[in-house]
């Protein structure tokens, strides 16, 4: 589904990603872990197509298409979803209207008729129950005045509504207390599907207690330095990121959070 080969990327001329290879198949859940500054969020934004993140080398195909050539909106319409680390507030635009526009833009791209009000509301109700989101949030402006937990839940709700092929969760656990984390994780688990891949980007292992990955990759200095199964996450949690450094014989100063 997603195949990344030797991706190098820069932001304002600064080299952040130094050759990343990653293959994700439908139904798989991958986790990318790494210390601050290792390039985790950069990878997510490069895949989503954020302006200013320049890919200098390498390739990425998504469902057989050249991902890097597509504008961000087409990547989204092809089924790539990014749950933002910091969801943006959009004053004046109701969450319902926003999601309806997004759903129908995707349908238009695929040559389908827009969902009528009745069909849309039906889907809205279904998915609300799935991710346990309160109706009152949906009539409010997108993320405006939402608590941290509400914002993250809203991301997962949008994911549910848009039914992506690949969902990238960028530090979805950051800023959440344990109850909020559990609710968000439960929502994501509901959305696991044999045709849907999930890429979890996280600093900590705690989200992985609730969302069990099939594969764990450790990102360091813009490169994947180790890959393994879910036990790798536990090892990291136990030993900290320093053990990677030691193992690699590096002297770089790793920041602990």
């Amino acid at each position: 589904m997603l195949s990344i080969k030797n991706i190098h990327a820069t932001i304002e001329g600064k080299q952040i990603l130094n050759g990343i290879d990653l293959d994700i198949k439908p139904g798989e859940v991958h986790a990318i872990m790494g210390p601050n500054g290792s390039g985790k969020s950069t990878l997510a934004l490069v895949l989503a197509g954020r302006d200013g993140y320049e890919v200098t080398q390498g390739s990425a195909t998504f469902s057989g298409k050249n991902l890097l050539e597509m504008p961000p909106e087409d990547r989204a319409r092809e089924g790539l979803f990014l749950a933002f680390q910091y969801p943006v507030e959009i004053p004046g635009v109701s969450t319902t209207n926003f999601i309806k526009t997004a759903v129908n833009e995707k349908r238009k791209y695929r040559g389908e008729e827009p969902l009528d009000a009745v069909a849309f509301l039906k889907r809205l109700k279904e998915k609300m129950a799935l991710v346990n989101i309160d109706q009152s949030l949906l009539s409010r402006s997108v993320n405006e005045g939402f608590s941290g937990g509400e914002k993250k839940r809203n991301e997962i709700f949008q994911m549910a509504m848009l039914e992506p092929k690949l969902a990238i969760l960028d530090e979805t656990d950051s800023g959440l207390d344990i109850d909020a984390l559990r609710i968000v994780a439960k929502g994501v688990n509901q959305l696991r599907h044999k045709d849907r891949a999930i890429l979890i980007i996280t600093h900590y292992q705690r989200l992985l207690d609730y969302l069990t990955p099939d594969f764990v990759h450790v990102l360091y200095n813009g490169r994947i330095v180790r890959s393994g199964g879910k036990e790798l996450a536990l090892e990291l949690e136990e030993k900290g990121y320093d053990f990677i450094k030691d193992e690699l014989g590096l002297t770089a100063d790793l920041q602990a959070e």
Partner: protein
Amino acid sequence: MKEELNTLEQTVSSDYKYGFVTDIDTDIVPKGINETVIRLISAKKNEPGWMLDWRLKAYTQWQKMEEPKWPNVTYPPINYQDIIYYAAPKQKEQLKGLDELDPELRRTFEKLGISLDEQKRLSGVAVDVVMDSVSVATSFKKQLSEIGVIFCSMSEAIQQHPDLVKKYMGSVVPMTDNYFAALNAAVFTDGSFCYIPKGVRCPMELSTYFRINTENSGQFERTLIIAEDDSYVSYLEGCTAPMRDENQLHAAVVELVALNKAEIKYSTVQNWYPGDKEGHGGIYNFVTKRGICLGERSKISWTQVETGSAITWKYPSVILKGDYSIGEFYSVALTNNHQQADTGTKMIHLGKNTKSRIVAKGISAGYSNNSYRGLVRASKWATNARNYSQCDSLLLGDKCGANTFPYIEVKNTTAIVEHEATTSKIGEDQLFYCRQRGIDTETAVALIVNGFAKEVMNQLPMEFAVEAQKLLAISLEGSVG
């Protein structure tokens, strides 16, 4: 980052879509202003002596006045001797109906999406079309006259209803009110006149489309609306203009008079040529609009969507004279490229228990400058006066400006005045968030801008709201990528 901002700039810099010129012979008075020109205008319109005297008096006053310098706008000096003060489309005889309208004229209206037939047939809107200063077609007149509503051009009103015109013209905006009002009083060419008799609720929206069409011709319209006791009228004014290189001065005057328990709702969608992307050309829109709630429990409500003009200088105001009267002002002002707007309102509370509400939304993009300027005054007689003002600014990009200048004068201790203001910005973060959800930049900008302006748009009559939404989108979109 540079690249990101460029995308935003491209999105908001689109071409004026209504820039075409209608080829109709016009009857033009020589350039410049002097007593002879004023006499000529008055003669061409067959005006009675009192009207000419009024004009000449205004001209004398105007010569002693100075152009105001306080608005937060800049423009090169205007040469008042280089303006054509009168131009009328040549019409050989009076039209009996819309079918007799000049086909060229009709095509213009169709390009603008104003099909008179459609309007006549579908929406029940009576359209009094002002094209280059003279009304060329008036519809629904018969139906209106049956209930006693007078809706005609100002020229006609001067001929047919001189008593009403004499009584009310200049009663709300005196001829010496300001420099441009005085100029208008001297050289006004036409405009609309509405009179709603006692107890009549006007059954249809009254609508005028203004259009500037002759090179170098200033437009000096005058509108007067009088609502007698217990009457109601909703008036719509919409404008588009063809593309021009030279600046055109527009100095209109609108006066509204509401008597006991009368209500006037005045809605404007303004889309005059704003100039090109470098800021050349475009209309100077220096307008004086004011209403007076003369009677008890009367109400005047202004709603405006301003997207056009190179410079807008406009403060639709309400004088709340009658006890328990209500004034409202709802505004969306959008500026793009090098446009400048200094607009707002004045709410003058004179009567007891008077109320006013101001909702002003400014949208700035490109290199434009958008100022809200508003005055709320509670006089010493205005016991229990209430005002609520809300001014919000939305910025697109980082080269535009937004300012708020609220003036509050309270001379009665029982008056309560509230003012709230916010500023927000459509940034690349928001646009990227939308694009990541499959919503392209243009759609995202339209979504955000319409969301921002919603509270004001909701005040517009339905058919107008649709047009206004399109205008906001057109003014901000068009050339992504």
